[in-house]
């Protein structure tokens, strides 16, 4: 219930750039965390004979999973990384907090510039 109330407040609260940045940081963080749990469990299967690990790879070779790994995992990691840099800049250089909104916009530009070409290469590597 607390979570539903929080989501409702998050959507209706007009916090602008700072709040959107924080929400995306949290959503991408939890998403990457859940993937990591799956990923570590999956790598643990290397302790068994090779056919055990290779049989799970059906999942990794699935088109939907590949698309999710680019537009979910990679996108999430890249946003979380760039937003984390911005958070650290503001943490260690308090004067930058005055410019947090323009900093976030610059961060989005860097995100697009970094994500589009690398995701395009990943897409071409899919086939």
């Amino acid at each position: 219930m607390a979570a539903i109330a929080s989501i409702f407040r998050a959507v209706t609260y007009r916090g602008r750039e700072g709040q959107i940045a924080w929400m995306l940081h949290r959503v991408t963080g939890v998403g990457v965390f859940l993937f990591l749990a799956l990923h570590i469990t999956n790598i643990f299967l290397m302790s068994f004979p090779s056919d055990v690990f290779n049989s799970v790879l059906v999942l990794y070779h699935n088109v939907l999973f590949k698309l999710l790994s680019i537009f979910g995992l990679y996108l999430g990691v890249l946003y979380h990384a760039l937003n984390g840099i911005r958070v650290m800049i503001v943490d260690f250089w308090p004067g930058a907090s005055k410019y947090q909104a323009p900093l976030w916009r610059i961060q989005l530009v860097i995100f697009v510039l970094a994500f589009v070409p690398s995701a395009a290469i990943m897409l071409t590597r899919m086939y």
Partner: protein
Amino acid sequence: MQARSFARPRPAGRQEHAALEASGTGRSGNLERTAWLFTRISAVVLLVMAVFHLLYMHIALGMDAISFQLIAWRWQSPAWRLFDLTLLVFGWLHGANGMRIVVDDYVHSPVGRIVARTLLIAVTATLIVLGAFVILSFKAA
């Protein structure tokens, strides 16, 4: 449930900061400070390592190339094993510490918090032990 205050906290002056620092030497105060610092130190490590790992696996190797044999080939090198182990420990602890804060934000009942934290600690211990075990003990047949 406690009433929430949305009032903007009055910014503390320099002397008040010093007083807060001096009084905040209790156990939880130090834990929060260490966790805050760890988040940033591990973030810098992950900025380099996790992004490299993703680009390397997706672009240099490609997802179709991933197989038991490929990982066995990578783990022939102790350097890759050390890389993977560092990524495992820093990555998971950074994530688990973040989840601790998320849980504190959304789980308010004392029982729920005990359950969620116990679960988080158990999953953390299990995954780090399993992950470290396979990275360190793997022998290519």
